[in-house]
């Protein structure tokens, strides 16, 4: 799967890149004339797949599209796609007819027959929601030339779950919030998110844990506001506010105990550079500490993009791919993880 090994995933050179690890925009659509996925027969789902595969995907996919049929793909492909959040857990594990379109740069995917007929996602490293929403609009328009989407004059674009109705758009950012956790202020953050009608999830979306102090926040409201208003509110007001909470917490942490903060970052780099065994949990823990050290300028020998890259590559399917072994055989190779981390940091 060379097509998805691109550094665009690790880009940190964006205005809020010290806190925002990545941005994502997701669009839900259903094709008229078919039941939603949960009520459709296998032959109807196969027909939906064929219709999407023969439609024009437009400029987001202009450099080539790779279609992966999930019923016949191997487990490590699925693992890679899941670790990059290009497919969801239920989609990865389902048994019904389903496929995914991947753009050549690996930043866009269209899951066909997830909860809705189409779940398109565009993803980028750093904070790039405005550009992503623009690309998603183009993709939507392209798809609409060949597919007729279920639409209701009052409820907007119809989706299997009423929480996605209306625009069908969900924007999310992956935030790195180590200082809020260390200062025990995550609960405050969660309350603020709830008040602002945001969903807070872990690294891999719904139901997943917050590894490496990474939290995904997304808009929950999709009805009654235009795409532009949602973007303006989420990207223009909400994300900068959460970034500011974390930045202030980092500063407070530094002012309160500079020695401990500095020690934590250097100690993390020391472990990552020296360890011969690294569990996934430990790798996430020390990479998170290293990342905040890089963001605060405590560590200048490691690039932020390297840390972002390692946060992906220490995950099991990525690690197996790097070692050219099947994911099923690699289960959780702690020694290989440590070797890869050392080689990357020393390189």
């Amino acid at each position, binding site marked *: 799967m060379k097509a998805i090994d691109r550094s665009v995933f690790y880009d940190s050179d964006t205005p809020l890149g010290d806190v925002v690890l990545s941005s994502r925009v997701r669009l839900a659509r259903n094709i*008229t004339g078919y*039941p939603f996925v949960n009520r459709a027969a296998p032959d109807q789902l196969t027909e939906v797949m064929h219709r999407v595969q023969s439609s024009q995907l437009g400029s987001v996919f202009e450099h080539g599209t790779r279609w992966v049929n999930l019923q016949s793909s191997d487990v490590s492909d699925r693992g890679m796609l899941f670790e990059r959040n290009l497919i969801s857990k239920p989609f990865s594990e389902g048994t019904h007819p389903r496929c995914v379109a991947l753009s050549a740069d690996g930043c866009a995917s269209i899951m066909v027959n997830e909860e809705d007929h189409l779940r398109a996602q565009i993803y980028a490293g750093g904070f790039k929601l405005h550009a992503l929403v623009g690309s998603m609009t183009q993709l939507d328009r392209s798809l609409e030339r060949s597919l007729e989407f279920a*639409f*209701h004059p009052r409820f907007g674009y119809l989706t299997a779950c009423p929480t996605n109705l209306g*625009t069908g758009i969900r924007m999310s950012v992956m935030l790195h919030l180590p200082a809020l956790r260390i200062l025990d202020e995550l609960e405050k953050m969660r*309350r603020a998110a*709830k008040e602002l009608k*945001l969903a807070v999830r872990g690294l891999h979306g719904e139901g997943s844990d917050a590894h490496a102090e990474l939290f995904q926040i997304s808009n*929950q409201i999709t009805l009654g506001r235009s795409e532009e208003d949602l973007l303006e509110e989420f990207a223009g007001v909400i994300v900068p506010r959460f970034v500011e909470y974390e930045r202030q917490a980092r500063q407070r942490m530094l002012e309160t105990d500079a020695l401990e903060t500095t020690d934590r970052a250097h100690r993390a780099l020391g472990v990552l550079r020296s360890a011969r065994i690294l569990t996934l949990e430990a790798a996430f823990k020390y990479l998170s500490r290293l990342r905040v050290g890089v963001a605060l300028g405590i560590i200048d020998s490691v690039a932020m993009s390297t840390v972002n890259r390692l946060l992906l590559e220490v995950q099991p399917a990525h690690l197996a791919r790097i070692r050219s072994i099947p994911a099923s055989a690699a289960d959780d190779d702690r020694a290989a993880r440590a070797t890869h981390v050392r080689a990357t940091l020393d390189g």
Partner: protein
Amino acid sequence: MTRLCDHCDQPATVHETVIKTGVAHEVHLCADHARAHGYVLPATTGAAVSITQILQAAQQSQPRAPERTIRTCPSCGMTIANLQAVGLLGCPDCYKVFEELLSGVIQRAQDGASIHVGRHPAQAATLIDRAALRNRLAKELREAVSSEEYERAARLRDRLSSLGTAGDDDLGATLNTPALP
């Protein structure tokens, strides 16, 4: 600005105006104090909205099953019981079949919103323009008839019939809902 609870510094989620001896008092309560004061709040699971819970609550709060209530979607066979169990609709037509039950659910899931604002598919935009025009012309026709402007009424009727009926707007079963809010 977020209003705080009358009894603590948590954000208020229940707001009510109570009239006592002819004087109106505003009441603002956080979830905990609202429960303590006897308000019944929907159960929530973290920040995410549980559609199955809302659906169950919505059905319980509905008046006893009127005869005409449709309980199965003729297009996909979805039943209310199934809908409550999985929390997902079965097809676009379910939105019409279960509209009564769903409109409250949608408003609660979508922070009070019930009407789409934003992009439309190109075809639907044409349909919406046509439906809006039809509604406006029908209103003008009624006014013209009641004010006995019969020539104007005839012109309006001709224009209305040239637009066809709501049923002509069929872009698939999902778009049959004729009137716009």
